[in-house]
């Protein structure tokens, strides 16, 4: 490890954008409730600390499964371990939703690609497949911790 890595890791460097955080906070409160500035700052710090906590645990989970990359399911498991199990369902749903929207966006942006990878029919079929996959995963209930990459696709 480089000497520089050990010298004070300034965690203040990476923080979260105040504007986005403020919006999230304000949406939780009635319109007339205000938040003192130092309370806002502290909330942001708490969130960074939350990321640190869950990241460390995700790293642990990943280690135990002898995988090299921290994957979404490791984070979900970490949330459970740390007592934030109530978040899992909503987080997973948002993740699936995000993947679907991403695919729609990249279908729209297909003109950027030099190679025509898929015809529109193939792309639509792929979209249907992923919808079905997402639905199956949501209905399947529990997320198993051991989920080797190979199982991610439906081909079997």
């Amino acid at each position, binding site marked *: 490890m480089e000497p520089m890595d050990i010298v004070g*890791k300034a965690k203040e*460097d*990476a923080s*979260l*954008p105040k504007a*986005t*955080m403020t*919006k*999230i*906070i304000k949406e*939780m*409160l009635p319109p*007339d*409730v*205000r*938040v*003192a500035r*130092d*309370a806002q700052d*502290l*909330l942001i*710090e*708490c*969130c*960074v*600390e*939350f*990321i*640190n*906590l*869950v*990241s*460390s645990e995700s*790293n642990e989970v*990943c*280690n135990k499964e002898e*995988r*090299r*990359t*921290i*994957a*979404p399911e*490791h*984070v*979900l498991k970490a*949330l459970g371990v740390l*007592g*934030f199990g109530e*978040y899992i369902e*909503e*987080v997973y749903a*948002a*993740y699936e939703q*995000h993947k679907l*929207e*991403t*695919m729609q*966006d*990249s279908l729209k*942006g297909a003109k950027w690609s030099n190679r025509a990878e898929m015809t529109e029919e193939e792309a639509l079929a792929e979209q249907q497949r992923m919808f079905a996959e997402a639905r199956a995963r949501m209905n399947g209930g529990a997320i198993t911790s051991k989920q080797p990459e190979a199982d991610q696709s439906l081909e079997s």
Partner: protein
Amino acid sequence: MRQAGAYSGLLCGGVSGRTGPHSLPLARIKKIMKKSGEDVKMISGEAPIIFSKACELFIQELTRRSWIMAIQGKRRTLHKEDLASAVIATDIFDFLITLVSNSDSHETTSAIMEVETVDFS
């Protein structure tokens, strides 16, 4: 299946036109993740997406619980002390106790000493 890079404008909230859910920036989240420990493994492009939503839920919960504390104090403004009280009252927020008590103010320290544990279950 490779999509447009996770951190391209396409995916960072707002460009997709959604005004509802506010997405935290994935690149920033990934940066924080990398700094979270000594031996952090490689992070998949999708992991920060999970964090984005989890953080949102976390902030919402902490805000809500802090607000309850403010109400108990008959105030309409959230202060640091309310955050501290909420943290103390919630088991899963134990990891924040040092952070909220290091918020130097004297009032925070006395608030911590005075507040009884409230059971929200």
